[in-house]
């Protein structure tokens, strides 16, 4: 019995070693004084992204023999559960990347160690000026810099030029034209617009509300989802597209991947997606074009965007080493674009040139969409913890699914409003 246990333990150990060496590509002979750091990175792109990120970590480890970083990629499904259980059980990483509001939310739970000192230093040596204007400040909460920006994510409309051409439709410039074009493009089992019922689908709702000058919150962080007429108008617009029959009927049940596949197959002419997505389209990549920002009925433009970031956890035993890594990562992460082809837009402006090199569509997005991007917090300056739950909990997804199913806005909206209010009240 005893010997069996010992064997089991030894195999476990062997596992861990094997895993460590295979991931890090280093020998297991690291000396006892080396600091070990856990870095959890979300999967920000296609498989090549993970390889690029692993390579950057390897470079860091080579350059800093006293700090050894272990890289782990975290799937998006249940990411919230992953982080929260890790934090609550004391097994959080030292550093992680995260989407828009994860840092503030975890900060509020007391899990995040702000990067104030590091950012002061960056300010002092001018490094901070490299970041896109406002992005660093967006991540300031409770008078602390809870994290450092690394990529900007944004949603924009794509269209299939060949379909529009075949139907004799010009790329729409306004909502009205868009709706008409979508209707015209709907025929023979093809549809004007394809959406999805998941989080990616809820971006259709958020984006159009912001496009119309609306937003979920006012300057005092009060919920204005149904009280802001611009929001209702935006939802009515989406609802109208559904009512026209121009929305792909599978949309409420689609995942983002289904939606993308449908769009790539040419079964729909318009789709809202993140930058760079055409790179996954294979043969039809050239037949995907970026729609210039549209004007809403009141002449507004706008879309949803997030400042994705990298953060440090309170549980880290080596904050200095972690800071060293964060700063190094921030300065050396260019291969994420050049090799990893992530869809994010670099927060550092100095990366832009290399990141967009040879990609006109990408450059167009950076030039024309980034300036009109707004966060879910909208009118409120900065971000706040509940946003993460609002976006991730499923309330918006439910609202989105209902709209795409053709449920009247006036029926769907109050339910969503009261559910979100419940989250905010907590």
């Amino acid at each position, binding site marked *: 019995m005893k010997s069996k246990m010992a064997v089991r333990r030894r195999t476990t150990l062997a596992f861990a070693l*094997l895993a460590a060496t295979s991931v890090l590509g280093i020998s297991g002979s690291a000396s006892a004084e080396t600091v070990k750091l856990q870095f959890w990175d979300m999967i920000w792109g296609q498989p090549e992204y993970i390889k690029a990120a692993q390579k950057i970590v390897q470079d860091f480890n080579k350059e800093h023999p006293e700090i050894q970083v272990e890289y782990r990629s975290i799937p998006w499904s249940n990411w919230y559960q992953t982080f929260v*259980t890790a934090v609550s059980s004391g097994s959080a990483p030292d550093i992680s990347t995260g989407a828009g509001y994860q840092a503030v939310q975890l900060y509020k739970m007391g899990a995040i160690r702000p990067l104030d000192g590091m950012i002061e230093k960056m300010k002092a040596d001018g490094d901070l000026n490299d970041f896109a204007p406002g992005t660093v400040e967006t991540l300031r909460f409770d008078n602390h810099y809870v994290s450092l920006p690394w990529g900007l994510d944004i949603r924009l409309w794509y269209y299939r030029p060949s379909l529009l051409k075949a139907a004799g439709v010009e790329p729409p410039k306004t909502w009205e034209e868009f709706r008409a074009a979508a209707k015209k493009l709907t025929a023979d089992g093809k549809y004007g617009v394809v959406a999805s019922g998941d989080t990616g689908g809820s971006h259709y709702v958020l984006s159009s509300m912001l496009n119309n000058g609306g937003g979920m919150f006012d300057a005092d962080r009060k919920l204005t989802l149904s009280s802001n007429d611009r929001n209702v108008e935006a939802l009515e617009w989406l609802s109208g597209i559904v009512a026209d029959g121009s929305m792909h009927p599978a949309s409420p049940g689609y995942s983002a*991947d289904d939606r993308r596949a449908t769009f790539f197959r040419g079964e729909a002419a318009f789709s809202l997606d993140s930058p760079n997505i055409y790179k996954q389209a294979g043969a039809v990549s050239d037949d995907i074009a970026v729609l210039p920002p549209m004007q809403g009925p009141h002449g507004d433009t706008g879309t949803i965007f997030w400042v994705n970031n990298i953060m440090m956890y309170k549980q880290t035993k080596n904050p200095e080493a972690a800071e060293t890594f964060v700063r190094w990562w921030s300065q050396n992460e260019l291969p994420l674009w050049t090799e990893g082809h992530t869809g994010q837009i670099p927060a550092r402006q100095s990366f832009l040139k290399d990141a967009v090199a040879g990609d006109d569509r990408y450059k167009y997005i950076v030039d024309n969409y980034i300036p009109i991007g707004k966060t879910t917090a909208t009118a409120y300056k900065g971000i706040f913890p509940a946003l993460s739950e609002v976006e991730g909990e499923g309330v918006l997804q439910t609202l989105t699914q209902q709209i795409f199913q053709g449920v009247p806005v006036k029926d769907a909206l109050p339910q969503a409003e009261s559910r979100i209010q419940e989250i905010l009240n907590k």
Partner: protein
Amino acid sequence: MSLNSNTLAARWRLFAIMVVIVLVINFPIIVIVANSFQTTEQIMLNRSIIPQHFSFTNYEFLWGQTSFFRFLFNSVIVSGGSMICGVSAASMAGYALSRFKGPVLSIYSQALFVIQMFPIILALIPLFIVFRALELVNSPIPVIIIYTVVHLPFATWMAKAFFDTIPRELEEAAQVDGCSKFQAFLRIVLPLSGPGMAAVSIFSFLFSYNEFFVGSVFLRDESSMTVPIGMQMFMQQFATDWGSLMAAATLAVIPTFILFLMVQKYITYGAVAGGVKG
């Protein structure tokens, strides 16, 4: 209705009906296997069930580019571990319930029913904290323990039902021959329980091999993930790579399928739900 009165023709007619039923019911599985031999482009292009081209590309990809075989290995460790724990614990408890009476035993047997109803989600957070304190996250041990408990009630009932079919007189004879009660269990009852234990083992193995929810909480490191968890991550990373997904799905089914073929004559013992009355 005499079961053997069927004529030969009737038997073959039944055979034909069963072939159709099996094909219809296993249609989704056939689709998986068939598509695993096509590249993703081919799958997306023709979307038909019967492969037009035949290639091992997906399997080569799985072998060379992914941790799939590590998942498989982890799954075997986790399932094997919880199978051994589950069968040991269930056979002992099942034997106690089968052979002895008393207030403690009847309370235990009722408690099993409640545990069966217990939503495991409730226990996950406290458990995670406990196992974290023991530095056992990403280790197969907590998962093995939790799987063992989750399938323990049913495994115990199965074991009890099987022990009920073994005549008590055998143990009494053994006791008279010189065994203690425990020796009688070990030397006489257990060796006779092969088929029953095989059934409990299959059930335990299957449960652990297929479980997704608990595993997704405890096994986060790619190097510790079991097949379902790894598959889930796979779906994230290779979301549109249907070919690899189908190949992974096919490979995931093979271990349990082989296991079932090996022990298929015992599986009906596992279903002696008559003993489940508790």
